[in-house]
């Protein structure tokens, strides 16, 4: 187990270097110099352009500039935005909000997704099964910005049940609406995954045995069937959590959630290369770590998969 984790951690090093290299190079090689649009209809003062070029090593060969950046990164220095704010601090500020939003979304996936999946899986072919199948199909086929805008329009603007946007006050209540929108797509997948997995396991030998030896229905389903059926679902939710921690540009934009997605979106439009690179680097790290965690949980849930 320890060796497995160590190996996985070591594998992360080339992945992180590779991704940051690609992102760094791409961000700074966008066509046009990054200061062209910063002074409206005039070119920026040459002194300003010179100072910024120097600050961000834009005159260096791209590989040299990258290694300078990487060197700072290793000492924990993510650099500064054009506004002079520390990228590290901005990320620290945005991350808890995104994590909170991700947790709310995961809660919806678990409650509604698994709930609907169990109901549908236990009564295959029934009215409720068809209802779940059709409604998840609808959700999967509608883009998230449509769901977001429509819910915002009615629940937020017209009826005032939820706040239209979140803003600085990222309380649990304020995050319900964006959390639900964010969860909607995965929720549909979770429901379908649970349903299939449960339906399959109900025909498994060990379930028949459990029923045959006279265990009550509740125990057969609640303990024996569920534990095995949820393995793929847990994996899916775990991986989804990793993705959600990467921020949701669309949802965070619609509901003005000051999280990582919003930060990245703003930095891209402002061409704030340091911010974009820093944020994405952290995203890569988080994603890798969450995935490692999911794999470990997987082994614990299903002893057949062992990380020796």
């Amino acid at each position, binding site marked *: 187990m320890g060796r497995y984790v160590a190996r996985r951690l070591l594998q992360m090093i080339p992945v992180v270097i590779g991704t940051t290299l690609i992102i760094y190079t791409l961000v700074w090689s966008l066509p046009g110099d990054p200061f062209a649009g910063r002074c409206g209809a005039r070119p920026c003062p040459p002194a300003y352009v010179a100072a910024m070029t120097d600050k961000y090593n834009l005159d260096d060969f791209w590989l040299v500039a990258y290694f300078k950046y990487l060197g700072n990164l290793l000492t924990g220095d993510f650099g500064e935005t054009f*506004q*002079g704010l520390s990228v590290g601090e901005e990320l620290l500020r945005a991350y808890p909000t995104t994590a909170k939003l991700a947790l709310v979304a995961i809660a919806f996936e678990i409650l509604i997704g698994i709930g609907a999946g169990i109901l549908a899986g236990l009564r295959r072919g029934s009215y409720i099964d068809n209802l779940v199948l059709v409604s998840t199909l609808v959700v999967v086929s509608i883009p998230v910005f449509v769901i977001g*805008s429509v819910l915002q329009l009615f629940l937020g603007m017209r009826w005032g049940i939820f706040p239209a946007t979140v803003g600085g006050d990222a309380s649990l209540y304020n995050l319900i609406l964006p959390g639900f929108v964010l969860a909607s797509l995965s929720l549909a997948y979770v429901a379908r995954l649970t349903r299939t997995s449960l339906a399959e396991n109900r025909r498994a030998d060990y379930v028949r045995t459990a029923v045959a030896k006279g265990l009550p229905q509740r125990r057969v389903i609640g303990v024996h069937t569920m534990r095995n059926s949820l393995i793929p679902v847990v994996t899916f939710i775990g991986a989804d959590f990793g993705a959600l921690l990467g921020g949701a540009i669309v949802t965070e934009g619609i509901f*003005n959630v000051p999280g990582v997605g919003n930060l990245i979106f703003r930095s891209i439009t402002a061409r704030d290369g340091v911010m974009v690179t820093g944020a994405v680097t952290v995203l890569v790290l988080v994603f890798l770590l969450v995935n490692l965690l999911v794999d470990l949980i997987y082994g614990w849930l299903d002893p057949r998969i062992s990380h020796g």
Partner: protein
Amino acid sequence: MRGSARRGAVVAASVGLALVLAACGGDDDGGDNGSGGEGGGAGEGPTGSVSINSTQPENPLIPTTTNEVGGGNIVDAMWTGLVSYDSETGEPGLAMAESIEPNEDFTQFTITIKDGWTFHDGSPVTAQSFVDAWNFGAAGANAQLNQYFFGPDGANIAGYDAVAGQTDDTGAFVPGSATAETMSGLEVVDETTFTVTLGSPNSLFETIIGYSAFYPMPESFFTDQAAFIEHPIGNGPFEFVEEVPNTSINLRAWEDYPGDPKPQVENIEYRIYADLDAAYADVVANQLDILDKIPPAGLAGDVWKTDLEGRSASEPLTTRFTSLTFPLTNTEAWADPNLRKAISRAIDREAVIAAAYGPGNYVPATSWVPPGNDGYVEGTCGEWCEFDAAAAQELYAQSPGVQGTLLISSNADGGHREWVDAACTSIRDTLGIDCQGDFNPDFGSFRARVNANEITNPFRTGWVADYPSIQNFLAPLYTTNGSANDGGYSNPQFDELIQQAAGLEGQEALDLYNQAEELLAEDMAIIPLWYDNGQRGWSENVNEPQFTWKGYVDPLSISVKN
């Protein structure tokens, strides 16, 4: 759409406060109609809290390096300059200045500031505070974005070149090329007086120094810049409380503000939105108090008028001007004025506006200066800006014509793709030639091509005035060496007129500017398209706020409903 997000000066004070300057830039006492706003009575102190939509400032909150809306609105609320512009008319009036006395030929100005003013930290505002701030802004070593306001494109203070440093042949800055640290044209006489000597006559000096680049700076700024950036200190009606990046910037009415009018609202939250649609949703739901721009989604089908019934307004903006510019230096293709006139007359502006922005949301241009600016004369463009298919075809027949497809370049975002496509349709239908948009994805990459003089076909040019004056719509854009002369237009007569006008004032100067406009009409190297209207909304919690001549909310006009 950072193009129009770029800003000049927004008001820091004065709804008809100060002595309205009569033309001779002197100190004639004007009317004082002190409008206190509809809400909270004067003398009771400011009450309540409001929120205003904003974007994350892109630069540190230092006046000499803030040149976009997000930071600009906050800087303007936190500082009071020597001169401020009336919210409604854009008329400059004395604010922190007691008097500004020009010499005969407008090359030297003696500025006396009001006594007893302090910064938010209690340190006094002196003549030195202004002189130091200006020297800081002009110095090449400090790399400030608003540097050019002190040079020939702005006030043109004597000794600017020595402080600003030099550029090499490629236009790149040569580090360490500045030979002086202070501009020779600035001289402190005593605590409250200083003189400014200019490199060339400029009757508009007083108007120009209302721009935020000319705000004073406290001593603490020069000793510890990092601390200042964390917690900026101004001398204006509102003081800095805190910034939560990406979320909000909070200001509070400053108790000891000596200026007039006083703030009526106690706390202002500038709430950061990455997406204007989210801000719109909030103002409809009464969770945001003031929205200074309605997004396209709200304008479509005039939804905003019902969504925000009784709490929205639309007004012409005096500061924005959109045009189509022909490149004249990198190609011969557009050298014939008849061709340029034919294209101008082939664009049905009314129809293009209706198709791209909704009817009536913009105003077709008939000159190079938007109405509301001193010196605006309707129709200086004459028939050349009027759509006439037959006349356009006739002109086109007399010209060498367009080789191949007519391309019109622009950035695709910010609603520009829509009007370029509509204009092309109009040109195609009228002249029977092929016309196509040539788009860059965003403003930055588009401007990079314009700055590099790479575009060889007509392209979009948008201008947001720095200060309210006809001069600002003509000199930087169309003089041969103008800092924003993108098409390379050059007419010695035009340059001559602009230069003469700078040494005159009042109607004499305006007449010359109008004559210069007539030259633009003869040449039609820049086709006027339209002036902007500004649409805004507010919540049920506040009284109708006033908007500055630039189209942003005037923080001194905000009051909450009792």
